[in-house]
């Protein structure tokens, strides 16, 4: 038996890691465009529905091959989510890029509501169960390191988050694409003058962020057994908070902020009860912003990293 506190910490870190995958999308879009994409939570939700749908199709096509179907399911979810993310950018944001700062924000809130109720009306009005056939192995096997007890799924979530964060960091700081990204973030006009295809770079940011949200969606629905049309809302809010906490626009900052929020929620439940978890999370956010208005690690990919 592991102790209560270590269980709480493991649960908190795992939850934080899922927030982190979503927060990365918020932070990248903000870093490049300076706008907050409120529809990101819905992209996350579309990712989880796509994966379950795709796995259903695959198991009809060639049978129940767990690893293959799950992997392909995640890939399909990433592609579909990326498609939605790109379409959002193309339809709802691109033309508003030079408009007042509130215009794309409002457009994003509209898209968010639209997508929620689109799924609600066309796919499922009720909660759908994640097919347990695929997740049972991961959730029922545990790795015990002394008092610490991880399920395979928790290890997978943590591992994915860490790898993706490092890959993103590398991409932004050590590749030509990353240079173009940072140039676009600093000054779109200047970047386009030196030959950076600004529109493509921005579209790429949305596609990448949306694909990451899809991974988070699949992990989340596996971890919590359920998919529902409005599940993007709350996690979107938490991930957005995490991105601000870590310094919006900052990749390691988003992960740090998300882990802190996950742990705070878990520890609050341990110390005061889960009724207080939102109170403590947002109280901490206020405190951090008062002391460090630009977040823990500072704002913006380009200026800071």
């Amino acid at each position, binding site marked *: 038996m592991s102790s209560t506190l270590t269980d*709480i910490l493991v649960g*908190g870190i795992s939850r934080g890691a899922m927030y982190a995958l979503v927060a990365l999308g918020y932070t990248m879009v903000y870093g490049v465009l300076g706008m907050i994409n409120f529809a990101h939570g819905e992209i996350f939700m579309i990712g989880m529905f796509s994966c379950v749908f795709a796995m259903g199709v695959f198991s009809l096509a060639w049978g129940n091959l767990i690893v293959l179907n799950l992997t392909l399911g995640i890939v399909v979810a990433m592609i579909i989510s990326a498609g939605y993310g790109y379409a959002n950018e193309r339809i709802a944001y691109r033309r508003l890029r030079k408009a007042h700062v509130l215009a794309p924000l409002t457009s994003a809130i509209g898209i968010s509501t639209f997508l929620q109720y689109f799924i609600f009306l066309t796919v499922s*009005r009720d909660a759908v*169960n994640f097919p*347990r056939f695929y997740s049972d192995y991961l959730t029922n096997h545990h790795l015990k390191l002394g008092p610490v007890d991880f399920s395979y799924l928790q290890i997978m979530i943590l591992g994915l988050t860490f790898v993706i964060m490092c890959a993103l960091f590398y991409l932004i700081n050590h590749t030509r694409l990353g240079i173009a990204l940072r140039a676009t973030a600093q000054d779109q006009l200047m970047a386009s003058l030196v030959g950076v295809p600004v529109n493509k770079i921005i579209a790429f940011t949305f596609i990448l962020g949306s694909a990451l949200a899809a991974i988070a969606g699949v992990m989340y629905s596996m*971890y919590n057994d359920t998919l529902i049309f409005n599940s993007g809302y709350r996690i979107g809010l938490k991930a957005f908070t995490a991105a601000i906490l870590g310094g919006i626009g900052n990749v390691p900052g988003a992960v740090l902020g998300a882990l802190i929020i996950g742990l705070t929620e878990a520890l609050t439940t341990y110390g005061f009860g*889960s*009724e207080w978890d939102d109170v403590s999370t947002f109280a901490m956010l206020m405190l951090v912003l008062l002391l460090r208005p630009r977040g823990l690690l500072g704002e913006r990919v380009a200026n800071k990293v």
Partner: protein
Amino acid sequence: MRKLLLYLLPALVIAASFVVAGCGKGGGDSKSIKIGLAGVLTGGDGQIGASMLNGSQIAIDEWNAKGGVLGKPIEPVVINDEGDPQKAVTAAQTLIDDGVVAVIGHFNSGCTIPASNLYNDAKIVEISPGSTNPTYTDRGLPYAFRICGRDDQQGAVIAKFLRGQQKIAKIAILNDKTTYGAGLAKVVADNFTAQGGQVVASQGVDANDLDFRADISVAQGAGAQALVWGGMYKGGGPLCVQMREAGLNVPFVSDDGCQDQKFVDTVGNNAKDVYVSFGKDYTSTPAAQAFIQAYKAKYKSDVGSYSIYGYDAAQVLLTAIQKAGTTDAEKVAAVLKGQPFDTIQGQIEFDSKGDLKVADYVIWTVKDGKLQELAPAP
């Protein structure tokens, strides 16, 4: 041309909506009797709520086939409150404006309670097939009825089951922070402590979070010998799964909110030591067979847990209207309170508050992938 269209189109839409609304209002007033069917049809509780109102619909179909009530056809007006208290108030107002003479609904206690104020002010009889929170009828509203038990009765049955039958000393209670879930959790806690038990953890959680691991660890650490969930199946299912994953293999006990096949589907093969309180199983009684067949024929699915209650509510309401000879709420309420009614549940009687005189809570368990009444203790 394009600009003209731009102005014309909204104008047309608005005009059309007036025409449609006008038809809806003018057409039915004298020729038919409108009954509101209100409840949650979408979202996490959508399945259980919709199957409840489908049950009422079957009863209305039967009456219409026999020529309606008071010589007029019955026109059901279905409205979705989305399980949201604020939307329930809007829904209630919509029904009142639409001219319904009585309402069957709502489902969630948190919706039924605020909506019942409006119905009572408008002098409309309301029968809820599924709202179990005591507050609904405890406020002395003259036209509020329910055709199911109350949470103080239900909570007492759960507490007695845990303490008396399972001999459990320490329980943890979680609820989904709704009127219904939190109310039930409190009743269970009060009853359980009154019987000498100890509540080691009691928390409200946001059911939309769906990650209950921290609370489960706390319950585990506090030595809970059973976990009680006060709330609906959308949270109860994942909670039960996660608690088994965490190795907390103690009884999981919930309430009528988890009395749905969807709950069993979520729990899957973790369904050991899972108990749910609910009314007796009427689906196997002879009285229910005709209804169940009609339901399957019309909706191509099995009846939900509250379908029979929805059916009974409509039957009782229409019988009372027929007997009163009028749709006047005062007279219908007097008939409802004045005599027994034959329903699928057996013969039922309302007390002066509008509650059933006898509630029939029993404990169910999951067996062979289905919820079944637990055989009484020897």
